[in-house]
């Protein structure tokens, strides 16, 4: 059984790789828009990568109002 912490950690690793930053720089409560300097379209791009990794489908709507890795992880984890 995958735990929420493990899901969060995997998301941080994937985001770091996708946007070419060091994984140690990213934390669960970080605002990914601000920390990664990305806009909403780039966030959707990240979401696509995460879907491929976790083999899930997350509608765009689920990202509404989400800006930190922890909440994103909760949304993804609930669909695993």
């Amino acid at each position: 059984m995958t735990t929420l912490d493990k899901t969060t950690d995997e998301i941080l690793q994937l985001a770091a790789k996708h946007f070419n930053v060091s994984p140690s720089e990213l934390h669960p409560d970080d605002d990914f828009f601000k920390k990664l300097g990305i806009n909403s379209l780039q966030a959707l791009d990240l979401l696509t990568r995460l879907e491929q990794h976790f083999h899930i489908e997350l509608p765009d709507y689920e990202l509404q109002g989400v800006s930190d890795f922890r909440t994103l992880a909760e949304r993804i984890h609930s669909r695993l």
Partner: protein
Amino acid sequence: MLDLDKYNSLGEALSAALDRWPNETCLIEADRDRENGRFTYHQFKEAALPLANALQQAGVAGGTRCAIIMTNQSKWLISAYAIFFCGGVLVPLDYKLPADEQLKLLAHSRAEILITEYAVWRNISKVAAFKDMSTRLVIVTEAPASADLSGAQRWEVFRDVREPNFVPRQRADAACIVYSSGTGGRPKGCVLTHGSYLEQCKSLTHWYPFWPGVRYLSILPTNHAIDFMVGFIGPFVCGACVVHLRTLRPEFVREAFVRYKITYVTLVPAIIKNLERGLRDKFDTLPPWKRSMLNTMTSINKALTRNRPNLKLSRMLLPAVHNAFGGELLALITGGAFIEPSTLQFFYDLGIPVANGYGLTEACTVLTVNDLKPFRADTVGKPLPGVELRILNPDSDGIGEVVAKSATIMSRYLDDPDMTAETIVNGWLMTGDLGRVDEAGHLQLFGRKKNMVVTEEGKNIYPEDIESVFERVAVKEFCVFAANYLWPEKSMVGEKLVLVVHPESEQRITSEIVAKLSECNRQLLNYKRVHGYLVWDCDFPRTASMKVKRGELAEQIRRSKRRDSVLPL
């Protein structure tokens, strides 16, 4: 297309369209690379009947306000048609707003009916203010069988297909109440009449016609003023087809162009820029000889289409580029926010015209749009037929406030006669935008007179609306301004918000306070966050009722502080 002069309301015109082209496809709903369904005009009418019956049974009659909060999907259009058929007034709300703000706008509009999706309903029903919600009927689509709908009804249970009674409306009657800013401040509900929409549709389709066979790709939310007009009313009264895509993922947007051979699409500047980046990246990977050939063909196309577009020629010269967009694209439509002229020129040089326009919710959809005769990347186009523009108090460069008169302009702000009187003066809409009309009759914009910003996604942000989030910070007083309002610049680029902080006497703005400000700032949606803060040492000027006199404070700040006094947050 239908002769819109013959109709008095959107319901009447749409109803006539459904009977005029029964076998044409009017709507395709796609989600990612799947197609969820498609409707002919006749099937669309059939799908709307049960809902119209349910609305009439619930007491919807002429003037009843009915809200829709939904993502981009077929049931949005079906619901809107059913509401207009019953004589209702549509209140389209943004599904992207936080649930508490949706509830505030629902209350402000006094909507009696709400039609929404399960995911939205789930969020709304979790908010504390939900218990005070006063809508008489809530209809929820796509709810799982096991879901508790807290008293709402499922869309899917309505099956009564008897022809309901059509409720006629007049041109002066309200068709929609559209919120131009949907947040915790002072809601601005623009009351737009059936006449406004019919006139807008007539003038827009005069320059950018639709006909049976045209396919319009709809990826903006349908509550968006532009998409409501060019992704619903316009195509429908012309027998055209709307392709709804329920995702904004760039890879699926690109695929949709090709799969559905799209004719028109409306995109916000942020998405057009994303497309530009994608194309430029692709061009950079071409082998040198191919790149050189592309550059040559682009130059030839540019020279031969200088005076007006020639799509046949452009498609022949640059087939790979045009095929990537499906091969039948007539124009990209954009508006609602500033877009770099270089981006517009990039697409036009490739033979893809961009119809860049300018409008406000208060003016229905658009006031000006590029007529492509010739294409101009440096303007927002010419006034549409029936629109009169003036520049108020122009300076030595001819730049002043843009004011407009047109049959498309709203009748009023809902329940706000004071703001209506400030905004519509002797029949002229005071836009608050600074512009100049050049010798060719094109409007160029240079900034804003009003205290607001518009993001690249076309979202209006009024500083007053986001201030409450900073209330927890222990300072004497604070106020949010648009930087360009404090320090006017003749530019539409990089609009930012600034938080002006006045500490208590003897209080210093410590790193702890700055951290608290940052924390509060993070609670705002990404696009609403302030860019920096400015420390101000004097009491804010206030009215007798203790409201901040924003104009006066801005003047004081302008006199003694410069833009570089703003510290990052």
